[in-house]
């Protein structure tokens, strides 16, 4: 029997009086590109933080490729790559040095680091600036490097938390192509985004989260048809009853 990439069972995370994730059960198959959608504060980032071992769940279980996220977190960390919301890169290192550092943290050898770094820098359009310190990068370049850092070790599962935010259209499309390529290579991608067209374009399935609960799950087409609307954005507004929270 093939283990699913991610298996979440009755997962709950409470912060004092707030329920960030409420009894979530979800399964993502290997090779799937799964979109996690929801308004700000819905619990998407909390779910990712729990799955990558940054915070402990209040209750429930989750497994990554069959490994329990609490008991086998070191094994889980080797399997996942996480592009966090913050543009987290060392400003005093060059793009290449940032990639080399994280390659070493993932215990890669020099040859593998070099090959993978060159490939990522090429794909992300950073090759010409690889030796410049990242403090001099533009915002979009920093975001692309941040995504590269998450994928330096060629993880089986990539958690991409709003990877295209603040990117220009060209950069965004380059990242989309790269994400699609991950899927083609058999990798599992969990994508959170506020751009509904991005989710519609890329995702095999999407889950809509609100107030920590999974309120909808299916392919974009299924959800559009089920809710009898024109696109995913309308599904989102119909189900959550509002647009993005910060716009209220």
């Amino acid at each position, binding site marked *: 029997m093939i283990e699913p990439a991610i298996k979440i069972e009755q997962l709950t995370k409470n912060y004092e009086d707030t329920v960030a994730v409420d009894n979530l059960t979800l399964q993502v198959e290997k090779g799937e590109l799964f979109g996690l959608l929801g308004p700000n504060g819905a619990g998407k980032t909390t779910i990712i933080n729990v799955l990558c071992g*940054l915070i402990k769940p209040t209750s429930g279980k989750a497994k990554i490729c069959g490994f329990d996220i609490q008991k086998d977190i070191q094994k889980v960390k080797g399997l996942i790559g996480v592009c*966090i919301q913050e*543009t*987290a890169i060392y*400003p*005093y290192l060059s793009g290449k040095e940032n990639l080399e550092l994280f390659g070493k*943290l993932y*215990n890669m050898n020099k040859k593998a680091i070099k090959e993978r770094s060159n490939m990522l820098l090429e794909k992300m359009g950073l090759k010409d600036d690889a030796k410049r310190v990242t403090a001099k990068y533009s915002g979009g370049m920093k975001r692309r490097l941040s995504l590269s850092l998450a994928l330096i070790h060629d993880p089986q599962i990539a958690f991409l938390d709003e990877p295209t935010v603040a990117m220009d259209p060209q950069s965004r499309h380059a990242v989309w192509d790269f994400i699609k390529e991950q899927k083609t290579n058999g990798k599992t991608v969990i994508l959170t985004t506020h751009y509904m067209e991005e989710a519609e374009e890329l995702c095999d399935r999407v889950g809509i989260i609100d107030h920590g609960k999974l309120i909808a799950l299916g392919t974009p087409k299924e959800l559009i048809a089920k809710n009898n609307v024109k696109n995913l954005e309308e599904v989102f507004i119909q189900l959550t009853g509002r647009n993005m929270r910060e716009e209220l």
Partner: protein
Amino acid sequence: MNIQRVLALTKKELKKTIREPAVLFMIFLFPIVFVFAFGASFGGFGSGGSATYQVGVVNLESSGNQHWSLAFTDTLSNLTMFNMNVYTDNQTAQSDLSQGKIQAVIIIPASFSDSVTSYSNAPNNANQWVNTTIPLYLDKGSLVATQAIPPIMQQVLSSMLNQNQPALQSPIQLQTASLVEVKQSSAFDFMAPGMFTFASIFLIMMVAQSFTQDRENGMMKRIRISPTTPTEFMTSQVLSYIVIALIQAVLVFAMVYAMGFRPDVGILSYMFAFILVLVFSVSNVGFGLITATIAKSSSAATGLSFLFVLPQLFLGTFVGASLSGAAQIAGKFVPSYYVTDALTSLFLRGAPIASATILLDLATVSVSCVAILAVGIVLYGKYYKI
């Protein structure tokens, strides 16, 4: 523990130190500029106030002929500024002097009473005097002691010989051994050991800023997502700051050497001094972590780090020598005091590495530094995951 990860993170931290101008200035350039400016302009400490000096006495006169030597030591004992300690042999007295337990040793020669008696019998006939020299050894690690003790000793001696002023001709000569043996120490020489300690203290600020910045920009989160363990991460941090402290110590030493500081010690003493400074740097990583725990942002960390920088600076380095007695006692509660004390004993007093005082200082520094680092790691780990 994965060595590749530890070395990669250590290298990263060192690159940061070299490439970030503010860090580079604070860690390396500031201590050097400070040593230069302070060393070049410092003219000497103020008066010592009403300090009490521990003086060792070795009386070589035979027990039946100690009339004048006892009178001499009694007169010294009656002075509030001297606390006399009697030694039976010079070796023990010298050992205590080299470890800073006493500030002077006076050797009363076997012919002392004969000399005083001969002077009393024929004060105007130098041919009939029995000439005697009294060696006076002084604490070379104390500027105040070297300046204050000899004239008072001379004054007591002169008054005992019924001379209002030190006579040009006298059967008894006070020979200040430390000033005969080595060149006259400058005020800067007395400060130099404290400067080694001084430079390392600013690591507190750098560590606090580094941790808070990495927290703010999400790097700490990114590291935690990777397979890097907390032990590997903390080892890399301690290792990198030890390397930085070593470079600091070398630079400061080069600077104080260029300014004329030439301690008469061997290579082992220098190696020991560097090791001591490196051990001390561990406590600064600990204080930095405690600061990073309290501080909510990197800018707050800069200000809060002075909570630890200033006491270490004022109570434990060269600055402490000119502070009040109460402040000097308070200094015993900061690790920098013991580093400066050991370096002073080593460089200025010529104490051997294996002497009790230096070993005690090393033990105190080692234990306190490990304890402070442990507190820092536990506190930081409790409030912010590593």
